[in-house]
Every structure is written in C-alpha cells, then in structure tokens.
C-alpha cells in the first residue's frame, strides 16, 4: 500500500543523522520533526531566524514574535538562538546546515527541481527555496509521486520554471525512495506492498533497477 504523508515523513526521518542541523520546508517536511530516531541529537533551523526550534506552543502560550518560516507559532528548545535573515542565509549558503528537506512540484533525473511557480496561474514566490537548494550539500525531496491529474512528477526533464539545477540527492514519495545518480534515478526502496512494476508505471523518467528492491521499513 502506498504511504500517506506521515509515512513519507517517517521514512525521511530515517535519513537524519546524529549532530545534524536540518532545515525543514513547509508541508510534509515539517512533519519529519515528529519522528526523529531515538538516540540522536538534531537541531532544526528555520530560515526566518531561529535555530533549535521546538514543538508548537501549548494553547495560551503562543508568542507572535516566535514563529517559523511557515508563519506558524512555535517554541524553542534549550540551546536555541535567534538571528537576522542575513545571518540565517549565511548559515545556509555557507553550508553550515547539513540537510535540507523540502517539497517539490517536479524533480528531474539530473537533480533539477521545480517548486515555486506555475506559469499562467498564481505565483506565490520562491521564498528561501532557491537559496536552500543552491547551497545545501544534501537535499531530500518529500512529495507525492504523481500530481492530482495523475501525471508523474519524477521526470526526465522538468517542465515548470526551475528552482535549482542538479541539486536534489534523494526523493521520497508515497511509492518509493529514489536516489539521484549521475546516470539518473536509481530505485532504492519501494513502499510496503507496492510493486516495482507499479513504480515504473507511475514514473516518467527511466529508473535504474539493480537486483531485488527492498521494502521500506516503517513502524
């Protein structure tokens, strides 16, 4: 069975490593914070100027001056710090942040990503996404494998305006875990009960498939 959004978040959480500083995008990536593997320490950065982000506040304890990049009220954890936008993107551009997890509309086999604009429709802007994808050493995309019209979002070439070029390292969808290699997408894992044939049929790009493809292990 294909994963739900929480399943995608749980699988991506397995990519977190001890002592990682991580930037989480809006949507599925935000959920990853709820499933940090036991026994490791990670800190979450939000590009509006906080490191050491904690969970949402208890009702009545919201502070309008403490929000994340999704403009949601948050709390901070011991060791947290606040800083200005220029320093925040210094952290990102300077590759002090180890991992960026974000959503996408399309990802191509060369690692290109598109996630900020659909021509002819509303353009909401790129926010910090272009800085994040251009700078991060490790970028994981969390998204659904196909769009609402049933078309694959895993493509040979992006059709939408790009956010960044050749930057995505891994993609986790409701169907599969894919690695972006110099030769294209390599199928690493499949969602529980999802067949390789189903994944191939749902993917416009060619897939590199070597040997038996294991099922994802998700609690």
């Amino acid at each position: 069975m294909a994963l739900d959004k929480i399943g995608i978040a749980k699988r991506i959480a397995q990519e977190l490593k001890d002592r990682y500083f991580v930037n989480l995008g809006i949507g599925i990536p935000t959920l990853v914070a709820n499933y940090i593997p036991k026994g490791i320490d990670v800190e979450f950065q939000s590009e509006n100027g906080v490191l050491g982000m904690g969970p949402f506040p208890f009702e009545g304890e919201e502070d309008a001056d403490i929000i994340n990049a999704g403009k949601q009220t948050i709390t901070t954890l011991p060791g947290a710090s606040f800083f200005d936008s220029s320093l925040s993107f210094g952290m990102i551009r300077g590759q002090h942040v180890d991992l960026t997890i974000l959503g996408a509309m399309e990802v191509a086999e060369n690692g290109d990503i598109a996630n900020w604009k659909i021509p002819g429709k509303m353009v909401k802007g790129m926010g910090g996404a272009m800085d994040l994808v251009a700078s991060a050493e490790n970028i994981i995309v969390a998204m659904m494998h196909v769009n609402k019209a049933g078309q694959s979002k895993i493509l040979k070439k992006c059709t939408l305006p790009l956010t960044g070029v050749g930057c995505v390292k891994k993609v986790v969808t409701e169907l599969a875990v894919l690695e972006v290699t110099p030769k294209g997408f390599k199928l690493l894992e499949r969602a529980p009960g999802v067949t390789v044939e189903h994944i191939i049929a749902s993917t416009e790009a060619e897939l590199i498939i070597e040997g038996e493809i294991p099922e994802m292990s998700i609690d």
Partner: protein
Amino acid sequence: MINKKVTNVQEALQGIEDGMTIMLGGFGLCGIPENSIAELVQKETKLLTCISNNAGVDDFGLGLLLHKKQIKKMISSYVGENAEFERQMLSGELDVELIPQGTLAERCRAAQAGIPAFFTPAGYGTEVAEGKEVREFNGKMHVMEHAFNADFAIVKAWKGDTAGNLIFKGTARNFNPAMSGAAKITVAEVEELVEAGTLDPNQIHIPGIFIQRIFQGEKYEKRIEQRTVRNR
C-alpha cells in the same frame, strides 16, 4: 550622545514622497513596523516601490497599502496569502519582482555595508539569473546581485534608546537588522524607548549609527498569521 528621538510617527516619516523606494522590515506579520504602515496609509503616499519579504495579508501589514493602491511595485520573496495582491498582480496594476529570500536579505546587507554587488549561487540556472552576470568560483556557478538603493528603511525593534541603539525579540528580528542603515534614511519604531545609557551596550543588536530617527510606537496588535498549538 547624538539624539535620534523624534516625537511621533508623523515626524519620523517626514520626507517620504510619492514614487520613493522604501524598505520595510518583517517576516509575514512578525516584526513589521505597524505604526509606520498605518501612517503611510494616512499620508496617502502613492506610487511606492516597497522592498519587503512579504506583502502582508488582505487587511493587515502591507496589505493595507495595497488595498489603497499606494504601491506601484513590490520586491519580495514570497507573496502568498493575499487575495488583493493576486488581483492587482494578475490585472497588471502592480509590478512584482520576486527574488530569493537570502538574496533579498543580502542585497539589504550589501546596501548597509557599502558593498555594491556580490555573487550568490541562489537562482543560478533559473529565470532569476536571466540577464545577470554569472561566474564560476571554486567549481560552482554564481549569479551577480546588486545592493538595493532605497530612500527610506523602516524597521521595527523591541527596545531602543534615544541614541538609536536597537534590541530585537525572537524571530521578529528577521530583516530588520539588515535594513538598518541600508537606505538614505532609516526610521526605527520600537515597543519601548528608553534613555541612552539604560540599555547594556553588550546586548545591543544594531548600533545607533545606522538609525536616523527613532520613536516609540503605540498599540502593537502583533497579529498571528498561523496560530498553531499542541494539546497539553
């Protein structure tokens, strides 16, 4: 001590005229200069070019200026959550330049720090880089971006003193420090204005040299855009 205190918002915004370029601090509705925005609505200043990360919501923040059609051009990184903005943009009434958030922050900081231009990897290979000089450094491609050139910067801080020194609170800091001193005149509005000598010099985030006018704002609403809580 050089005194930067002005008596009210009217005095603070003296000299802002139609057609000027203004930087405004804030991220979403967090850390925005509420009093100054309200005064710009009162003044009916028109044809403004506004540099601000976001454009407010329909009935608050820069949305108030949009509603009165006082903004000619908006330079931002993200402009969602604003139906009037969408309408003016699609109808062509409003000119919009979208730029990456880190580039926006650095173009402010560059203006503050006297750096005319800089190279960043953000936007390389995208439409953001069209028409701009690109150059390779350490095997990676970068795009040249220029410092902003603004007439006024309007920032909001938590505490300030009569010398113009500023202290920010939480994530309300955001773009306010980089915009301080990034325009010909910087106006700071603060929740609490104290006499110079009261604040600990070790705790100052922005030194008064970057601020020309400071005043204490009134009745901060501090609206929350996304109220998210957890169960006890």
